[in-house]
């Protein structure tokens, strides 16, 4: 019973980890850029969700759509003004541009929103479903369902729409895509917007149980990288598997080891996977 409970918890939280990390892997897949500032967009999404709740009275699960839209637009601007300029620069310069971006967003949020911890109150955030001896946390379940929906939507978009196909073409070979009449610049812009927008969406979705403040991104950044690398950098399906893997590892490891060591277990699994299967758990050789 205890194991099943831990497994259920792990799957639920894993879905959330997946949705916040899909954006990171998308950005990498299409642009080849490791975005250290990704978690800051999570924080922005949380703030948008919070403000939508505080000003408009919207539940964060609905506010998440607004969070997505706002951060999508912001992402397009950031890609156009900053990221685009370093696409041909050495990869190290790209990474550190995003580190600069991280510092700027975090402190802009500190200036704009103040340092207070903010959290929403919703009627369901302290309720749980009971199935026999099993507890299923409602906010976790809601976040999980939202993650599934957004994952499906992304999959449809990438595989069924012209935009999605054009984006994948750009990811494979930007030059060839341009020759086929695809505006590669535009595709990259949309991909970045979509990537950070999805992360922001995930941020709003976790608001019912997580507090937002300007440095909340730091709690997620390493976790997000673990998820995408475990699954396979650049693979959307991989992010989902990676998210599940991280959620379940964290939850199950707590049964055998002190909770304090949960990240140690996680990182050791991470290093082992990297050493044995650098392409990640999903997908063939890259």
């Amino acid at each position, binding site marked *: 019973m*205890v194991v099943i*409970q*831990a497994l259920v*918890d792990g799957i639920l*939280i894993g879905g959330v*980890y997946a949705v916040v990390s899909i954006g990171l892997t998308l950005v990498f897949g299409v642009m080849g850029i490791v975005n250290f500032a990704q978690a800051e967009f999570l924080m922005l999404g949380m703030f948008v969700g919070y403000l939508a709740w505080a000003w408009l009275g919207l539940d964060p699960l609905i506010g998440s759509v607004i969070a997505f839209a706002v951060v999508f637009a912001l992402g397009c601007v950031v890609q156009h003004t900053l990221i685009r300029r370093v696409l041909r620069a*050495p*990869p*190290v310069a790209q990474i550190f541009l995003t580190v600069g971006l991280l510092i700027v967003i975090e*402190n802009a949020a*500190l200036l704009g929103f*103040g*340092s*207070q*911890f*903010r*959290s929403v*109150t919703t009627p369901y*955030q*302290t*309720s*749980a479903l009971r199935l026999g001896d099993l*507890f299923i*946390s*409602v*906010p*976790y379940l809601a976040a999980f369902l939202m993650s599934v929906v957004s994952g499906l939507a992304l999959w449809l978009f990438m595989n069924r729409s012209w935009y999605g196909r054009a984006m994948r073409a750009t990811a494979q070979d930007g030059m060839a895509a341009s020759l086929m009449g695809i505006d590669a610049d535009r595709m990259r812009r949309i991909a970045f917007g979509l990537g950070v927008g999805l992360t922001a969406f995930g941020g709003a979705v976790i608001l019912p*149980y*997580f*507090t937002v*403040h*300007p*440095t*909340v991104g*730091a*709690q*997620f950044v390493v*976790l997000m990288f673990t998820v995408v690398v475990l699954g396979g950098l650049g693979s959307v399906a991989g992010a989902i598997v990676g998210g599940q893997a991280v*959620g379940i590892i*964290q*939850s199950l490891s*707590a*049964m055998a080891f*002190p*909770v*304090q060591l*949960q*990240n140690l277990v996680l990182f050791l699994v991470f290093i082992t996977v990297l050493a044995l299967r650098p392409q990640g758990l999903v997908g063939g050789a890259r």
Partner: protein
Amino acid sequence: MDKRSDHRGPRLLRPTRRAALQLGGAAVAMPFIARLAYAQKGPVNVGVVLPLSGANAQFGVNSLRGIELAAEQINKAGGIKALGGAPINLVVADSTSTPTTAATVGQRLITQNSVVAILGAYASSLSIALSEVTERRDIPLLTMSFSDQITSRGFKNIFQVVAKASTLGRAQLTETAEIAKDAGQTLQRVAIMYEDTAYGTSQAAGIRETAKQTGITIVMDEAYPLGITDVTPLINKLRGADAQAVFPASYLNDGLQIIRSMRQQRIGIPVIGGAGGYIIPDFKQGLGEFAEGVLSIAPGSHDLAPELTAEFRQRHGYFMTHEALEHAVCLSVLVQAIETSGKADPAAIRDTLHTTRFDQGWAKAMTGGAVKFDQTGLNTLSEPLMVQWQGDDLVTVGPSKYAKKKPIWTA
């Protein structure tokens, strides 16, 4: 991965060395100008080192608000009388949340701004790093960080206005046992969970120690990583532990998650927080009705001296948090020390701080109505308080001599 970066020989050292020196030179020149500006006579410079950005920013900002309030009151009342009405001039520096920065900005305040003393730096790790500098420069440092290490290193220039973490941990358990006993319950099995920071671990150690002495069994003893993203594993363990009360020590986010998850799983045992995130207004805002009845240990409380703390509430719209209050006390005590010694000299201030009992101004807001440091720099009069969320307010409920209201115990 990058084939474009440079790999030519070391012959190229030349021009860049020069560039390095020029840049260095510029950096060297600028603070010199700053030094001239501050070298004039007049106001007494007091250094303030606090985490105004980074993870602890909220607590740093609150602390600064407390200090500013106290400084304004002192200046409005005519400054420091012993120095002919010299006003207090606060020199504020952001320690961010890194100890190295705390030490460096401390050094800057001492040498560039000739501060007579420094107040800060909220988090224990920051205060300890800072104290390594102040001790070597013989500048008094007044702090409200509660780590035991602060005053256990034999330093002569450090002053801790609150009780130590181990004392807080002990009181957290004994006070709770007391409250439970009054409600007709014998406390036998408790759970502790704490973030693995200096604050969490030292407080947990205090509880653990006391439990051993008093024969209380600890049925769960879990540290968890700072910045935990999912507390469910902790609550699952708590559910299986059959504890009568739980003692979490954490900042706000984990605290909210812990209480919400407990409520989800219908775990209704009393929660006795370890200060930190449990006694700030955001806690009540985040939890609403679920904050009701949550107890916490606190090194100080606004309701011991409503006449002093009311102005803070008026100005900022929320009650004066304990870190704001204790930082105001630090400044107030410092000013009384300058008044007593009659000069704004770090050595004289230090000696006065060691020997005098301070019972004026904000010192009245502390337990015992005064502040008295022993030779290690610890305020011997400070006693931990038990506070509880009742209605919209955080009220002192123990020890009984300080209690404003009766504690509520829902076993």
